[in-house]
């Protein structure tokens, strides 16, 4: 009686050794997260991976052995995770991020960012104009949050707030700047993440932020302290407001991708734009850390208006140079893979 020989079991016998070899390599990579393989093994890995993938394709066509199919599927999966997981080290990721992908991402969503700047500026103008026309608006737009500074405060006490730093010791100033950083970062990240809600909350946040600033400015300008307040704000505010505008722009970009996906599906469009927008928002956190230091320490220590203006404007110029120089467009998403 003749023994049945199956193509599929013959196929398995021929290829099994290479699967087991790949299995062992992948198992070792799964155990250690760092470089677990020697150079010659690293050379073998892609070959074995492709061999396993082709085995999988063949097996699907000729074999009905469910255990074999399951094993190959799983092996290919695990090798795929190892080969296509984020591979770069943390240092590489950071270098790539600051060197290329962050500024490129900012340029890629330039229009939503400009829109978010425009919205903020318009809201600030509106706040300024409203409060100038009727100081009562200040209570609506700013409320009691401004450390007791209201239209009822005397000009002297208003001035005092602008220059009363410097008396605190270093520890308290550092604590103050880190508090500011954490607070502002949360707001900025929220600004970005709320872009999911079709951008409406992002716009609201931007508008209320603008109104508040405009109204505040009106209060000081009405007492002839506009120039001084400008210095007090711009030393950190240039960086901080830019960061908030970036996050707002990132949120609006997400909303745009979801609302107007064009030829792609909504999910595809969201996924592509979301990555870029997220890079921008992440960078904004870094900017806010710098702004926190400028605000918490720089502003308290430096009380000269012109130095304040000088630092603030120089920071703005630096940021613009950083974002606007460099090639246009996002080079293949950029981050850390080859």
């Amino acid at each position, binding site marked *: 009686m003749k023994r049945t020989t199956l193509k*599929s079991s013959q196929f398995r016998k021929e290829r099994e050794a290479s699967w087991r070899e790949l299995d062992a390599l992948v198992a070792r990579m799964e155990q250690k997260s760092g470089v677990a393989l020697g150079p010659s093994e690293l050379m073998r890995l892609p070959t074995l991976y492709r061999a396993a993938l082709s085995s999988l394709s063949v097996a699907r066509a*000729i074999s009905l052995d469910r255990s074999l199919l399951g*094993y190959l599927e799983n092996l290919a999966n695990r090798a795929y995770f190892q080969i296509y997981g984020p591979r770069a080290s943390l240092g590489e990721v950071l270098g790539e991020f600051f060197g290329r992908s962050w500024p490129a991402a900012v340029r890629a969503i330039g229009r939503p960012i400009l829109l978010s700047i425009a919205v903020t500026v318009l809201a600030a103008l509106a706040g300024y104009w409203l409060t100038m026309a009727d100081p009562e608006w200040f209570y609506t737009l700013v409320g009691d949050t401004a450390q007791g500074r209201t239209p009822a405060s005397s000009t002297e006490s208003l001035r005092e707030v602008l220059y009363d730093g410097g008396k605190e010791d270093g520890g308290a100033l*550092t604590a103050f700047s880190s508090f500011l950083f954490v607070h502002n970062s949360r707001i900025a990240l929220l600004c*970005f993440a709320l872009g999911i809600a079709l951008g409406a909350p992002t716009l609201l946040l931007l508008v209320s932020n603008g109104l508040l600033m405009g109204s505040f400015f009106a209060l000081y300008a009405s007492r002839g302290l506009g120039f001084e307040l400008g210095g007090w704000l711009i030393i950190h505010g240039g960086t901080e407001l830019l960061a908030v505008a970036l996050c707002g722009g990132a949120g609006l970009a997400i909303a745009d991708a979801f609302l107007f996906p064009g030829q792609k599906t909504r999910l595809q469009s969201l996924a592509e734009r979301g990555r870029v927008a*997220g890079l921008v928002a*992440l960078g904004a*956190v870094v900017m806010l850390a710098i702004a926190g230091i400028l605000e918490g320490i720089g502003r308290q220590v430096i009380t000269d208006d012109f130095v304040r203006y000088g630092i603030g404007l120089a920071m703005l110029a630096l940021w613009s140079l950083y974002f606007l120089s460099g090639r246009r467009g996002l080079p293949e*998403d950029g*981050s850390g893979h080859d």
Partner: protein
Amino acid sequence: MTDARLYAATARTSTQLERADSGRRQTTVLTPEGVELRVEMAERGERAGAFLIDALFVVGAVLVLVFGTIYLMTVLEGYALAFGLVVFFLLRTFYFSFFELIWRGRTPGKRLLGLRVIDRAGGPLRPSSVVVRNLVREVEVFLPLSVLMMPDVVGNAGLVRLCMTIWIGIFALMPLFNRQGLRIGDMVAGTLVVASPKAALLPDLVDSAVSPVGAAPALRPQPVSNRFTFEPNQLEHYGIYELQTLEAVLRRSDVHASQTRREIADRIRKKIDWTSDADWNFKYDGIVVEFLQAFYVAQRAHLERKMLFGKRRRDKHDKS
């Protein structure tokens, strides 16, 4: 019992999201090499579990941090507070991103439960995707928490609060509203959380006999018996679904396995009208297993041959 019933039951029509053997739903991912990989999606419960584990780690780290800061405050005052605030923020915001970056898509919680983040389109998982999917947690987790814990100040009572809860609930509960269980972060980053269990390569049933004790690896693999033979027309009754169910039954080794096998053997013999000159006693599990495996080999050879000619008979109802 269940396998026997399954075997007799009508094969279900395959939907787009088939279930894997483990009961998880599957989806396909196209690798850069152009091969479709079938991946098992993580269950929502598993993902919630992984998140809770990670949350516990974060909370634990924060508690250590708080007490450390309080202790340092006595020495360093403001600097310790500044340090504490910033580290708390970094921990909360970047814990997930950090681990998913250095561990190829896994956090400690995911690692414990065997889950992993992959790119939904099948490409490499980019660091930017990892960062984005975790930044969005701010809206999904921390915003709802802060709304829940918000004090009832003016303008935040009753109806307003209810509206906010509903509105935010939509974001937090998004995984319940789509078939792939994507949360908002996954949508924005283009990622997918999958289960990555390990499968072992079991011996081929075609060339190593199963012992009645079960599919335990025999020390010396025995060749499959050829005492049972089948006519070609006897192999026209079943399709791939039945074949693979039979495979699963042959590999079983639990206490009910022999009972199930006996029932299936009876059913098959009746269906294909199998008779023999010899008097086989189908009361013995050894004989039953031998018969079933012989039938499995013959049936698989038959179906695979048809497959080479482009005919894939899905199940017994498939008349192609």
